[in-house]
């Protein structure tokens, strides 16, 4: 049966690559090719997820060579959810972009984005730390090129900085890979998890790989490249970067932390404390900075700096519930942030600017867009009913169970800060003013308003289907030591 075939795991990687190539070759049909590829990829990911949900973990030995000689692909519940959120966000952004880009930009956008999608899928199913480096590079290079796509000094310099930072991060990671291989003779995560032990080389490996990936994830104080890159990119790209790309490096760090690094519970709590502190600082810093911004896109970019902080609060908790909270933060943030950037895009096209103080009357002209902003804001604040709320609830529970209630305070502070900047924007958008010297607002495509709203609604729905999602997370028990 086609649907039971084990090869879907390779198809989800190959299909977007071939789509990228096809859209590069036949430029006159680019949007058709791209949307077909996007649909095909979503269906493939759906089939793969269904297989994993019904039959459990999937393993695929590429070239029929098993580890350590060959490369194995591996899909468990965590991978499935990452693939699914990539598919949902990716599909929505494809729809949105098909209305957003035109002409020359479109010609360059689709091959790059489909490559990025392929890289993300490849990353989430890989269990080989060197192969992860290659996928990380695919993601990094396509992301940089996508940022530069909007042209102009701001975007180009942001892309340049992003590229340098991304390369530095990759190299630090690769140094870790080199040392790991020469210490243990394999780059396969499963085998590494059986072999690694604490020794001086291991301390350094952990340090190098962690900071390399932190740099790519833009955790405070290494976030310096993110606001410029995320705010100057074209809107669909900003959404991709905030929703998916920063999560990719986080995902690797996460897997390493749980599986590869030889950390017992005490070590996880101890070392995790550093990450937890940095995460808390990111929340406060990102929140306050977001509040100070006068441009909507920059505000949203700083909000990403803040939201990344939440992911790291799970590290010191070192419990399965904490990890689940982190995963729910990833899902909720990915969906809500996509919606929020789409909102910014709609406003940008409609008004010709994104100055927060001049957003008046937006609610009259773009009611659906403002609803989308409010809904995604609710999810980011962690108010019910939303995905963000479930994540906060889980994290608080985990914090209290492990006796580290102080992370809960950070959570509440973060919620208030988010509330402040969301309502700052809404407050301006609700003002009604009939000014005559304003250039006539431009009508925007219904498709763009609706994708934004659908994403925002999905961020809310995520709050209602938690048991289902949390159930998927248990497949292959990715959060227990020695799994994978």
């Amino acid at each position, binding site marked *: 049966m086609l649907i039971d075939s084990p090869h879907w795991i390779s198809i989800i990687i190959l299909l977007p690559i071939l789509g990228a190539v096809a859209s590069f070759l036949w430029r006159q049909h680019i949007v058709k090719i791209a949307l077909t590829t996007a649909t095909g990829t979503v269906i493939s990911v759906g089939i793969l997820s269904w297989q994993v949900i019904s039959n459990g973990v999937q393993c695929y030995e590429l070239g029929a060579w098993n580890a350590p000689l060959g490369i194995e692909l591996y899909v468990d519940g965590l991978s499935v959810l990452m693939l699914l959120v990539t598919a949902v966000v990716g599909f929505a952004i494809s729809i949105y972009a098909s209305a957003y880009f035109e002409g020359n930009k479109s010609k360059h956008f689709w091959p790059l984005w489909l490559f990025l999608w392929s890289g993300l899928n490849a990353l989430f199913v890989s269990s080989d730390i060197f192969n992860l480096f290659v996928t990380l590079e695919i993601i990094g*290079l396509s992301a940089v090129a996508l940022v530069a796509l909007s042209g102009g000094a701001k975007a180009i310099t942001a892309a340049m900085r992003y590229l340098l930072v991304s390369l530095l991060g990759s190299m630090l990671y690769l140094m870790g890979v080199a040392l790991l291989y020469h210490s243990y003779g394999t780059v396969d995560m499963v085998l590494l998890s059986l072999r690694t032990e604490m020794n001086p080389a291991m301390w350094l490996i952990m340090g190098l790989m962690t900071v390399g990936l932190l740099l790519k994830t833009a955790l405070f104080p290494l976030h310096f490249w993110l606001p410029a890159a995320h705010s100057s990119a074209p809107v669909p790209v900003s959404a991709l970067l905030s929703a998916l790309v920063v999560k990719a490096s986080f995902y690797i760090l996460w897997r390493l932390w749980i599986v590869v690094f030889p950390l017992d519970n005490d070590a996880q709590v101890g070392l995790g404390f550093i990450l937890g502190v940095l995460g808390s600082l990111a929340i406060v810093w990102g929140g306050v900075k977001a509040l100070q911004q006068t441009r909507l896109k920059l505000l949203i970019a700083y909000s990403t700096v803040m939201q990344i902080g939440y992911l790291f609060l799970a590290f010191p908790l070192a419990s399965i519930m904490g990890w689940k909270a982190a995963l729910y933060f990833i899902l909720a943030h990915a969906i809500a942030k996509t919606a929020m950037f789409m909102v910014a895009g709609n406003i940008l096209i409609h008004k010709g600017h994104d100055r927060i103080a001049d957003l008046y009357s937006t609610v009259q002209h773009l009611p659906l867009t403002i609803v989308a902003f409010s809904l995604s804001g609710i999810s980011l604040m962690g108010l019910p009913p939303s995905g963000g709320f479930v994540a906060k609830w889980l994290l608080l529970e985990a914090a209290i169970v492990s006796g580290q209630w102080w992370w809960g305070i950070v959570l509440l502070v973060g919620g208030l800060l988010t509330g402040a900047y969301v309502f700052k924007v809404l407050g301006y958008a609700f003002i009604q003013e009939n000014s005559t010297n304003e250039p006539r607002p431009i009508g925007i495509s219904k498709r763009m308003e609706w994708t934004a709203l659908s994403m925002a609604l999905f961020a809310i729905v995520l709050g209602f289907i938690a048991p289902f999602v949390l159930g998927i997370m248990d497949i292959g028990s990715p959060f227990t030591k020695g799994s994978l």
Partner: protein
Amino acid sequence: MRKIKLKILEKKPSLFTRLTLGILMFLLAASLAYAVWSLPTQALGLSAEVAKNVEMSGVSNPVTAVLLNYRSYDTLLELGVLLLALFGVWSLGGVSANKSSFVNPILDFLSRFLVPVFILFSGYLLWVGGFAPGGAFQAGAVLAAAGVLLFLNDWQLERKYSGFSLRFVLVLGLVLFVAIGFGFVFLDRVFLEYPPQLAGGLILLIEAAATLSIGISLAALFLGRDPSVKSDSKIDTGVHK
């Protein structure tokens, strides 16, 4: 070629900064050295595994066996990275090449002489890769060198080849790799698995296509723009500082 100012006013960083950084770098190097030092002096790594399976791989050069058989997935993705870089560079619009009126006669003569040699050598490297150091990337690099030489001589790709045909050659390596890798899925094998008796031939085929694509991609990266698009007047400011 557009020139950029190489010398800029770089204030020398303060002694404090340099000292701090120096100490940090020393610490980094020292700890790395300590880590490397602490590794066992002898480690087989995977060489035994590589050697054991090399007969099944279709080639006798272990590096090529790893690159195109055991870990061919990495190589496939890496061809993707190269193509991706090209997409990226082309998406930047490129800075147009100013037609220089003067062609260096020595360079011209040398290139006429060298380009065929380079192509021949590239073919040799490709073929030798099966059993000795060499292979698609080395061959591709030499091929690209020939292209660079031509570009330096103000050689231009004929217009009718610079569109679809060029793009087709650029993606050929990747597409053929995927096609052959996935082809055997229909014969009940997994992705990138070749029957051992066919492996040698298939690998050579993939490498040949890859060499072509890599060579042309690298040369195209050197050119820095999509030759089928007339230089974008907005980007080509021609500002020369």
